[in-house]
């Protein structure tokens, strides 16, 4: 029986604020799993702490709601121990790019096969609206006593620089594109990152749904345009095809250049995609030949309560 969308929804009450952009992301994740036909027991959502972190309880696959900033270590550990699972990590922008930024950079270098989705609302939602790392310098949301004193982190740029092999941005109110991007991220061989712009109507009164829709871009007339545009509509090609130095420079360069666009025109879609880089699981196959077939989580270690690993070669090495 083909899985239906409803199968991926739990009965847990969703207590996000009305109008929260996160609903769109949640739906897109559930739809992606359903459309890809991922069996419920073969997927797991790992999440950080924040409004966004509750996502793990709303999707009806195994859900691991970790600690603030720690979703990537937990998720990578599981993905490495059982590479047969589909692991999707999710979390807030504060979670992933503030307290978790060190893990973000390190995860990029590792390129473990899984997807990571950041719910990017510019604020620390669950702790009542402090500035998150993606909020622009000088911005004053209604929840701040004075304008933000920090420069913003550039999630797409940081991901590209850190070695993520799939880097995309989407918008929570464009669920169609979002879903396609998430599916591509899950299907990607290696570590995929999706930065989802997700309005927080409760605390971020600057980057609102209206703002994204074009408020302030030039009167109410025809000049007014959605700030969001899709990279794929511009003929942008994010894919690294040959992995020569020149091509790599070009693809990285264009991704970084586009990642700096903000304000009047905000690109969404896949910025960078490189499957010529071997994922971590492949890199360790030099050390562990049967890693894929007999990964850590599935190995037999005992028989009738007795250890069956043969340590005699090691003990022989130590013979007095």
């Amino acid at each position, binding site marked *: 029986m083909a899985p239906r969308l409803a199968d991926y929804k739990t009965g847990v009450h969703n207590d996000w604020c009305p109008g929260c952009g996160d609903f769109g992301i949640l739906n897109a994740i559930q739809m992606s799993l359903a459309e890809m036909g991922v069996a419920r027991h073969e997927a797991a959502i790992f999440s950080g702490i924040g409004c966004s972190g509750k996502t793990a309880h709303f999707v009806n696959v195994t859900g691991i709601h970790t600690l603030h900033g720690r979703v990537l270590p937990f998720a990578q550990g599981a993905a490495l121990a059982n590479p047969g699972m589909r692991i999707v990590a999710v979390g807030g922008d504060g979670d992933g790019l503030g307290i978790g930024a060190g893990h973000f950079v390190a995860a990029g270098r590792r390129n473990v096969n899984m997807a990571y989705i950041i719910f990017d609302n510019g604020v620390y939602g669950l702790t009542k609206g402090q500035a998150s790392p993606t909020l622009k310098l000088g911005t004053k949301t209604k929840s701040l006593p004075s304008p933000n004193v920090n420069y913003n982190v550039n999630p797409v740029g940081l991901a590209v620089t850190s070695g993520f092999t799939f880097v995309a941005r989407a918008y929570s109110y464009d669920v169609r594109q979002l879903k396609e991007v998430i599916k591509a991220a899950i299907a990607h061989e290696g570590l995929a990152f999706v930065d989802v712009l997700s309005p927080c109507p409760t605390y971020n009164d600057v980057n609102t749904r209206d703002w994204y829709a074009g408020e302030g871009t030039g009167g109410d007339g025809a000049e007014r345009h959605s700030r969001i545009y899709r990279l794929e509509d511009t003929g942008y090609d994010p894919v690294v095809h040959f992995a020569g130095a020149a091509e790599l420079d070009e693809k990285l360069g264009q991704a970084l250049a586009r990642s700096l666009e903000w304000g009047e025109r905000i690109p969404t879609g896949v910025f960078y995609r490189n499957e010529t880089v071997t994922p971590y699981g492949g890199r360790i196959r030099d050390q562990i030949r049967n890693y894929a077939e007999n990964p850590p989580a599935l190995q037999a*270690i005992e*028989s009738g309560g007795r*250890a069956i690993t043969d340590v005699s070669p090691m003990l022989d090495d130590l013979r*007095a």
Partner: protein
Amino acid sequence: MAGGVDVSWLVGGPQGSGVESAAGIFAGACASMGYHVFGKREFYSNIKGEHSYFVVRASSSEIRSNVSGADVMVAYDAETMLRHYADVRGGTIIYDAAMEKAMIGDVATMDENYAARLGAELAAAGRPGGVEGAVAAAREAGTAVHAVSFRAILSSLADEAGNPKLRGMTRMFNVIGAALSMGALGVPRDVTLGAIRRAFAAKPEVARLNEMAASRAYSTAESELGGMRCALAPLGGPREGTMLAQGYHGTAIGKIAAGCRFQSYYPITPASDESVYLESHVELGVSGGRPGSTLVVQCEDEISAIGMAIGSSIAGARSSTCTSGPGFSLMAECLGWAGINEVPLVITLYQRSGPATGLPTRHGQDDLLFAVHAGHGEFPRIVYASGDVEESFYDTARCFNYADVYQVPVIHMMDKYLASTILTCSRFEPSRVSIDRGKLLTGRAGSDYRRFALGGDGISERARLGVEGAEFWCTGDEHDEAGHITEDPVMRVEMMRKRLSREGLALRAIPDAEQATLHGGGKIAIVSWGSTKGPILDALEEVRAGGGPEMRFVQVKMLHPFPTSYVAHLLEGATTIVDVEANYTGQLGALLARNLGREPDHYILKYTGRAMTSTELAGALRRVADGTAGEREVLTYGA
């Protein structure tokens, strides 16, 4: 050890000069002759140049510790001479003649404070403030001191071999020094050469050159050094079933045998050796099954290390991480997550001297109470300590069983003393390792699977990732039976009880003998934990041999939950309780006071960063026995 042989051999030189391999060769040779060997390395937090030394004791009887002082010393540099000459009272010192004229001020690596103390000491005795003064002092103390030109040996070797390049191979000085002393000690030449061959087994050409150099040194020893006051004749070949192990082999091979298949770590002294060992033994033979493997991941920090290990444990692999104090401090938050989510996990904690960076390459047992209390909030855990390397092999497997059966994080306390020892012990017996994964669910689940189902003994079935029908949830928030967030006060109370009652369960179910061990008997009772076991057992023998009273030793292995009634039982009838620990505050004493309502009468403590010798410990115990000991006896032996 009456009538037997018992030799303490000290080798020292700058870090990077091969002190460790020299000690390995000596220890290997002694072990191959049938001796019991116990050795320990001291070194600075430095890569090259600072003073490093190794004391190896070889004995015809069982030994488990170092003694104060040395019988034979090989000094590669002036600093070794200046730091240790007084340790060798009545024994033999062999040193490289090249340093003969060195003064204290020439030794740039020497700690200002020690330099000042030594200068004052030599000056007070009217001796020159340098190697000459040290030599004179040693001789006056009855020590035979031999200056040998290591360079001359290399030169004659080069001449002999017709290979002038050998003149420059000063990195063989370490083997030359070792061979000089071994020759003088009467170790048969072929035994020494065999030990060298084994030590350099991976590099046959290096082995060959070193054997040649050693042979040259042997000739010099025979012609110039004469016989030594103690001799190391073969006792009849290696003892059956004996290994020459390094400290970390116990937990490393223990993990492999116990089925740990995932280890994440961040490098830190003295913990990384274990991970490095696992990294070089990744693929594993499995009897009756496909080859297995340990996935070892070097992480970006210790938070990631414990986070990954938790993720992997949730996936179903026996998982662990290994660290030292600073790394463990960073793990406190994730530890609590493992606690509230009932995740089995083993954290091997190789302690060193704290606080902060502290003495990063020195010994300490100062993380006990932190391990017991680490992490905000209240959650179950087991803290377990091994007393020696052999124990640590079996204990590692126990720790994984406790983790799986009680679904709790287990902190396995080890330390730098254990990590940096080399010793002979009985070959580990993997057949004695049983594996109990507790209520791990790997097959299809029944309907309505709930990871944190209440009821029964409070331990619920734990599914690994990927089991059909057993999807589950975890959260660091308080949760309901399914694992979803709840703030319901009634559920809160039930879940707290579910988790914390596990400590009592473990206390009742784990056999007494695994919780604490009684050695000997007597009215004076020593209580201790961890690596003090060796010095204590040896000191007890020494006290008794010297006509002192029998004493009993209660070794507490399970530190949390605390085996209050069993320890109380083992202490019954004791009139004096003596707490022995390598820390300042007497942390086990605090646990005794809290749990037994009985504060130890005496504390014998050491916190110089150097492990206790049985000699100094025996001294303190004698003072306890004869009533002259203070409440706190602070030991300080060792450079």
